[in-house]
Structure formats: structure tokens, C-alpha cells
């Protein structure tokens, strides 16, 4: 009996005191991707796991130049526990991070070597910080987190302090001219004048930095108080997430779409209440199942009746078989999207407009008026035949694309140099995107008129070019073929598409 009691105590102690990594996910998280390492590592090795793109993000957070030779395998991570990547955003803060198990703390800090000890929160929870990130360690689980105040909060707080001190706009030229010396004869003196004047913009930006720094600290403190002191953790607030964790699959994802409306809570509280009715319980959950030569994703969407009605109309659509012609077997990745946009619009209009019409907010009322007028006046046949709701996107790999560069050309006699524009090639990820259209003449009409005023848009006969469209360097190509409007940064693909793959407009 004594042995059984000891065994029970031991099991209970393990259950109570062993911290699971998923237990550290903050309740503010609206999206979580949880990797079940036990399931996953039966199928693939850790070395293979760390080569996946989603692990690359974790890798980048963990490793810098000083840990060049190390890998996730050396990081002291307990692969018997889950790795959970989370994201959340509300009106004030955006949180991103991941939680994981710790097997060897010493090894962990040989990789997290830019983290300094910050505090021991409650005697059981250690906090470490680096320039951007914070590491929270509780028992044998850890959470790496970044808390960023949203830009609107930083700006609003800074402005309230700035103007409360009697300052004018930091960007107002009058404010600066008043303090500058009235000497503007030469370029040289211009610099001296500026250095003697008060740089309001610089002062404002410094205040902005200080406010951001304080808000980050404040946000982190509030989050840690919630997670550590008050148990504000996702596992305590989201039964659906807990249920997901019981699935015997390689990974699960959890997206709480009802959180997307948090921002309405303070801006339009009445609308928040009404919209909440529609989006209440709108959860997208899914399982990631590894097969021998494939990955299956099993998605479940939970929604109420009204949202369900919109989804039903949205899904009442046939896949456009023309799209298949543009997805080749050698494309590393692709996705297709197929909805009946017109039916979805009409159902959404029917459900949402009465809710919006009840609002007292001036902005909402004006928007409802505009929506109703557009609904009455716009040629919906033309609109929904131009974009029906079927689209595809392919990733065609990394290719050399033509760009322009500036070269220095030297005079052999004087070694003076001039800038000369010449052709160049750079590696670029190549994408193709297209959508089904019965009114390809409408995008063509738009491009024809835009090309008259924008020299960057050129008609090449069978296709259009938008120069310097990608990163202000590489062109995009557009064409209309086989009932599809296609956009790509792969010139060869567009040229072949425009000639070989069909002449039928």
C-alpha cells in the first residue's frame, strides 16, 4: 500500500509540476500553430524538421551570427513537448512568439546567448531579455515572446504628450524657421543653421521612441502578470484549443476569427455587439496529417447560423477548369481559391446591412448610405463577371529576372566616371496569379487608359508590362487569356501563355 501511495504521489507530482509548453500560450493569442513533435518525429527527423519554412522563422529568432555552427538540435529543446507558434492582436498590442519544452537549460543558453537575465518573477518563473525578445522559463517549459504596441497607440500617446507640452506640429516648417538663424546664402551655412536650430522632428521622433519603449515594457508586464499571476492562458480559456491538443496528428492550428473584431470594441462598441452575434464562436481549426508522400490538412470551420448562410452561398460555385492549364507539375507550390462572389455578396448584404443600418455612428451611417447607393447604381453584372471569385496562385521557384542597374563607366585618360544605366539580372521568387473573368475587356480598358498617363505601363501587343513593379526594380506582366486575367513576374511564362497556350480571348 505504501508503494502504491508513493507511486500515485509520484505520478500526481509529475502531472502537477511538469509544465507543458502549450500551457504558457497567452490567452490573447488568436492564432496558434501547434506542432506535436512526438507524432511528427515518428515521420521525419529533427534535422528534416528544422528545414521546414515554419521552423525557419523559429530558427531566425534563435540564431544569429554568434551561433552560426549550431542548429535547433543543439538548443536544449525538449522534443517530447510541443512547439507552439502563436499570434494575437488587440487594440493596443500585437504579440508573437512560440512556446517549447526545455531539456537542457545550459545548451539552451549556448544558443540564446544574446539573452540576459532580467528578473525572477515569482520565485518560479525566470525572465530573460534580448534586444527585441523576451524568454519566460517556468519549470521545463519556455515562451519566447515579442510584445509590440500597435502604431496607433504609440502615435496617439506620443501626440498627447507632445501637444500637452504646448508644442506645434513637429512637421510644421513655421515652427522650425522661427528658431533657425536667418542665413541661407550657401549650402555650407545651411548646415550650420540647421545645427543651431531646434530640430522638432528629431525631438518628436525621440519622444516617439521613448513612448514605444515604455509601452513595450508596460505591455510585457501586463501580459506576464496575466499569464503568470492570473493564469490568463489559452488552455484556460479555449476548450476548443484543448480539444485540438488531444488529436493524434503531427500538428494542429487554431484561429479564433471572433477576435478579429476586438478593434470595434472601443471604436464602435454598438457595432461590436451586433457583429459579435455573427462572428461569435467563429473558429477555424485544423489538423496537419503527415502521410507517406503527402501532407493532408483537415480544416473545420465553426460558425453561427447567419455566417453559415453567407458561407453556403459563397461555396455555391464550380471550379474553373481553365485554371488547371496554368498549374504545372514542376511548380513547387500553388493554391486555388473558388467562391461564388456574387452570391456571397448578396447574402452578406442581406444580413449585414440591417445590422449596420441600426448604428448611430455617423461614419457607419455614411458608409451604409454609400453601400446602398453603390448597390443600386453599380452594374453588378459587369462587376461580378469581371471578378467571379475563382483565382489561383503558383510559386514558380526562384529565377533570374531582368532589372536595370547603374554602372560606373570610367574614362581611361582621366579616370573620371559617369553613371550609365545597363541591364542586370537578379534572383527573384517568381509568382503567377490569375483570376477567372468573363469581362477581360474591363482590366484591358483600365490598363489602356492608365498607360496613357503612366509611362511605367506598356502594351506589348499580347500582354502588358508594369515596369519597376516589384521592389521598384523588376517588371510585372499581365495578360488576358482563356477567360483568365493573369499577372506574373515571369516574362517567359507570360510570353508563352500569350502565344502557345491559347489565342482565345
Amino acid at each position, binding site marked *: 500500500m505504501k508503494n502504491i501511495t508513493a507511486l500515485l504521489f509520484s505520478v500526481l507530482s509529475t502531472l502537477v509540476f511538469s509544465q507543458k509548453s502549450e500551457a504558457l500560450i497567452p490567452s490573447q493569442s488568436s492564432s496558434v500553430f501547434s506542432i506535436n513533435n512526438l507524432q511528427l518525429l515518428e515521420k521525419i527527423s529533427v534535422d528534416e524538421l528544422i528545414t521546414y519554412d515554419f521552423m525557419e522563422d523559429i530558427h531566425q529568432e534563435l540564431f544569429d551570427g554568434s551561433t552560426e555552427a549550431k542548429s535547433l538540435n543543439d538548443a536544449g529543446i525538449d522534443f517530447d513537448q510541443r512547439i507552439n507558434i502563436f499570434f494575437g492582436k488587440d487594440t493596443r498590442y500585437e504579440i508573437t512568439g512560440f512556446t517549447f519544452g526545455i531539456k537542457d537549460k545550459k545548451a539552451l543558453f549556448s544558443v540564446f546567448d544574446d539573452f540576459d537575465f532580467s528578473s525572477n518573477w515569482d520565485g518560479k518563473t525566470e525572465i530573460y531579455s534580448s534586444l527585441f525578445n523576451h524568454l519566460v522559463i517556468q519549470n521545463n517549459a519556455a515562451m519566447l515572446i515579442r510584445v509590440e504596441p500597435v502604431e496607433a497607440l504609440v502615435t496617439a500617446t506620443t501626440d498627447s504628450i507632445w501637444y500637452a507640452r504646448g508644442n506645434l506640429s513637429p512637421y510644421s516648417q513655421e515652427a522650425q524657421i522661427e528658431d533657425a538663424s536667418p542665413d541661407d546664402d550657401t549650402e555650407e551655412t545651411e548646415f550650420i543653421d540647421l545645427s543651431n536650430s531646434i530640430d522638432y522632428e528629431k525631438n518628436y521622433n525621440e519622444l516617439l521612441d521613448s513612448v514605444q519603449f515604455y509601452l513595450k515594457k508596460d505591455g510585457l508586464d501586463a501580459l506576464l502578470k496575466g499569464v503568470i499571476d492570473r493564469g490568463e492562458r489559452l488552455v484556460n480559456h479555449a476548450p476548443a484549443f484543448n480539444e485540438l491538443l488531444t488529436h493524434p496528428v503531427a500538428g494542429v492550428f487554431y484561429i479564433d476569427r471572433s477576435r478579429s473584431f476586438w478593434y470595434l470594441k472601443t471604436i464602435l462598441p454598438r457595432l461590436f455587439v451586433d457583429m459579435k452575434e455573427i462572428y461569435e464562436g467563429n473558429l477555424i481549426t485544423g489538423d496537419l496529417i503527415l502521410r507517406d508522400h503527402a501532407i493532408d490538412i483537415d480544416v473545420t470551420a465553426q460558425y453561427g447560423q447567419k455566417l453559415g448562410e453567407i458561407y453556403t452561398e459563397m461555396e455555391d460555385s464550380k471550379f474553373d477548369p481553365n485554371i488547371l492549364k496554368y498549374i504545372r507539375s514542376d511548380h513547387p507550390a500553388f493554391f486555388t481559391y473558388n467562391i461564388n462572389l456574387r452570391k456571397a455578396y448578396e447574402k452578406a448584404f442581406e444580413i449585414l446591412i440591417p445590422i449596420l443600418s441600426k448604428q448611430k455612428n455617423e461614419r457607419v451611417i455614411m458608409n451604409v448610405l454609400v453601400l446602398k447607393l453603390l448597390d443600386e447604381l453599380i452594374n453588378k453584372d459587369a462587376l461580378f463577371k469581371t471578378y467571379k471569385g475563382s483565382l489561383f496562385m503558383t510559386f514558380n521557384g526562384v529565377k533570374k529576372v531582368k532589372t536595370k542597374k547603374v554602372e560606373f563607366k*570610367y574614362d581611361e585618360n582621366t579616370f573620371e566616371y559617369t*553613371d550609365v544605366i545597363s541591364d542586370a539580372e*537578379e*534572383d*527573384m521568387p517568381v509568382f503567377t496569379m490569375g483570376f477567372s473573368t468573363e469581362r477581360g475587356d474591363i482590366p484591358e480598358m483600365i490598363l489602356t487608359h492608365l498607360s496613357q498617363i503612366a509611362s511605367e505601363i506598356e502594351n506589348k501587343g499580347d500582354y502588358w508590362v508594369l515596369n519597376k513593379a516589384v521592389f521598384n526594380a523588376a517588371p510585372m506582366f499581365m495578360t488576358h487569356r482563356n477567360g483568365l486575367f493573369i499577372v506574373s513576374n515571369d516574362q517567359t511564362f507570360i510570353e508563352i501563355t500569350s502565344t502557345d497556350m491559347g489565342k482565345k480571348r
Partner: protein
Amino acid sequence: MMRYLIILLPLLFLTSCIDIIDDLTLHNDGSGTLKYSINLSASKVKVNSILALDSFNNQKVPSIEEIKKTIREFQVLLANEPGISNVKIDLNTVDFIVKFSCDFNHVNTLQKALKKTIATMNESPILPAYDGDWISWDGTSVARIIPGAIAEKSRSYQNSDLPLLKTGTYTSIGRYDRAIAKVTNVKCKLNPSKTATFLQVNAFELRNNNRLLENTVVLTPLR
């Protein structure tokens, strides 16, 4: 100016193709003009994609506005140094080309002003490793080096595209009032009138061997 590169090194070495020109005009009295150009136009897709990030390799990526502010700060500080005038910096944010130029009343003044400006911007005294003369002028010969610490720092930045640096160049040009008698770097070319030197090295090789640009130019005696 080489030391100022310390500030830009992370961005420069994260990009693959880079062309740099330093163009020094040195008059008999030690005064002159320094022009410095950094051309990243052949890597503008890559530079733009890095600038679109918040951080890269655990280092904060500056915004264009922050880069402009830093450049303006450098310009104002350097312009206020005695003996320095006509400080101009042109930043082309479409092709990513930076062109700097300034006049100086003596080459020693230029070095001192650059050191002080960099120390002020870094809010710390110049590190001893970067101290010392990178250019010296005795009225007849001019000697130029790249401090080893700068080269070491550049090598510390890891970049998977480093082999692509092989297409980049560093060009060092010197212009003088009188004819050149001899140069110590065998790769250094002279113009037909022998009043200018041209030394171009590969950016990748320079990263591995900072002594490639070392050169002493001896001028003919003053008449």
C-alpha cells in the same frame, strides 16, 4: 571615410553586388576633395526586400527615413568640423546609390574630422583598433591603408550570398597636381599624363584581404 563604413557594413555585406569608388584629389598643399560612392543598384531587389523586414539575422533593419536621418546627421556634424567644407551627400533610394563629397584644407584635417564625427555618432570614442592613419601625406608621397579591424569586422558578417560579392568592385582613384614618379601596388594603373592613379579590386577578394588596396604613391619633386 573608410571608418564610416563601419555603420553601413551590415547592410552592405548583406547585399551581394556592390560597387564602391573612393576618389581622392590631393593638391600640393595637402588640401583637396574626397568623393565616395556606394552603388547597390545591381542588388536593389535584395536591398528592398531586406528593407521591407523589421529585423534580419537578429539585427534591426533601418527604414529609409532612419538611413536618411543618419546620413543627414553625419553631413551636419562633418560640415561643422573646422577645415571641412562643401559637404554633399546624395542618397538615391530608387537605385540605392550614395554619393558623398567634401573639400578639406588638409588631409590630416579630413581624417580628424571623420574620426570625430564617427565617434560623436557612435556616442563613444573611436576604438583604438580603428585609430591610426589610413592616409598619410608628407608633401611628396601619399600612403593609404585599410585598418585591419575594419576588414575583420566586415568578415564577421555572415552572408550566404558572399560568393556573389565576386561581381562587386572597390575602386580607389587618386588625383594629384603633379606627375607620379612611382606606385607600390602593382595593380595600380596610371593615366597617360601620370597625374592620376586607378586601383580596382574585387569586393570579395578585398573582404578576405584588406591589404589589396594598400598603395604608396610617390610624386615627382616640386619644381
